[in-house]
């Protein structure tokens, strides 16, 4: 717990000093969203129809954009190897990393989601569905991105490989999230999809931190 607090405080200090790390993905998200209406023409119906897909793809790309830096500095600076050698409770370090990365990349997306809904012509029910799926889905994005970052930590072309490894794992998330928003905009019930999303989230919360831990140790060793 001490470790968790220490790592969390350290992470927030770093985020406060390296604002580009989390502001850039957010800007990227917004710009991608504004490019879509320009690219397909501002037909309100069409836009509302494909909005869930756009929002989700922009969200997962922006999470991916911030993923590589997650453990990179600590690896390069030797913090990781010192933690591993001293056998400190790394699990808490990993959790602190993932939680603060969610707070810095995904939480802002949730906060600006009403604006996005307005931009893409979504109605209130669809917006609620977008919000709920983002709430359940973005932690999963961050967890899997952390896994990818940890696996490719010492790889030669880590960044692009990270995307190649993790994007396929995002497919089920994308399918259920956009199905939920789709159902919502058709006036259908979408609690089933939300349940699937929360099942995936629970599973990932249980297993991914351990896998991240193992991957970090592999890359350090």
């Amino acid at each position, binding site marked *: 717990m*001490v*470790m968790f*607090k*220490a*790592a969390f*405080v*350290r992470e927030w*200090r*770093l985020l406060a*000093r*390296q604002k580009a790390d989390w502001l850039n993905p957010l800007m990227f998200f917004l710009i991608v969203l504004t490019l879509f209406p320009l690219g397909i023409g501002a037909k309100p119906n069409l836009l509302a129809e494909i909005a869930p897909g756009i929002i989700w793809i922009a969200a997962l790309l922006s999470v991916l954009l911030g993923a590589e830096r997650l453990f990179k*500095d*600590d690896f*390069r*600076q*030797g*913090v990781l*190897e*010192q*933690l*591993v*050698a*001293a*056998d*400190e409770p790394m699990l808490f*370090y990993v959790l602190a990393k993932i939680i603060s990365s969610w707070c810095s990349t995904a939480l802002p997306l949730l906060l600006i989601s009403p604006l996005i809904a307005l931009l893409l012509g979504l109605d209130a029910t669809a917006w609620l569905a977008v919000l709920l799926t983002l709430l359940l889905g973005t932690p999963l994005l961050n967890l899997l991105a952390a896994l990818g970052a940890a696996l490719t930590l010492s790889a030669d072309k880590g960044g692009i490989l990270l995307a190649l490894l993790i994007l396929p794992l995002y497919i089920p998330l994308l399918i259920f999230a956009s199905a939920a928003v789709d159902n919502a905009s058709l006036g259908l019930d979408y609690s089933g999809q939300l349940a699937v999303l929360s099942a995936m989230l629970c599973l990932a919360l249980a297993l991914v931190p351990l896998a991240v831990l193992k991957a970090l140790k592999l890359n*350090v*060793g």
Partner: protein
Amino acid sequence: MFEAVNLQLAAGQLLQIGGKNGAGKSSLLRILAGLARPDEGAVLWQHQPIDDSDFPQNLCFIGHLSGVQPQLTALEHLEFWQAAFGLQPADGYRVLATLGLAGLEDIPCQLLSAGQQRRVSLARLWLTQRLLWILDEPFTALDQSAIVLLQQKFTEHLSRGGAIILTTHQPLTQHFPEAQLLELAYRW
């Protein structure tokens, strides 16, 4: 990389690992610290393989990477290490002052010189109670006064029954007549 390394270290002893560049000094240190696995053979701590013992809780490892994050200040580093590595709670200002960093506590480390960054990294040794120190080139970038300071710290640690394994090209025998020297030869 190397074969037939056989060594023992008792409490209160210092082991210096020497050898030419590329002889495998750092790799040997990583194996001793449990970060890498030997292809053959084993590392024992109190007659037990290090994986099954309380070895990690007795180890303080500082590799050739300093562990200093450029954006954080010296004081913030001490705070993190104190909490994360379970070090002694201590007055950070006092430790940093001992190391000649008074007045530089709240400056991001990227603004410090290489030698000053090294001092920040080594500050951990002033906070730890752990028995075995494994240090990779601790004297790199340090000036003469800092080297003397560090050697004094070594003497103090050894007299308390600690043990030190380090790599360096610095001759240490005049300060530590008891020190063992292991010279790694370049095999091909």
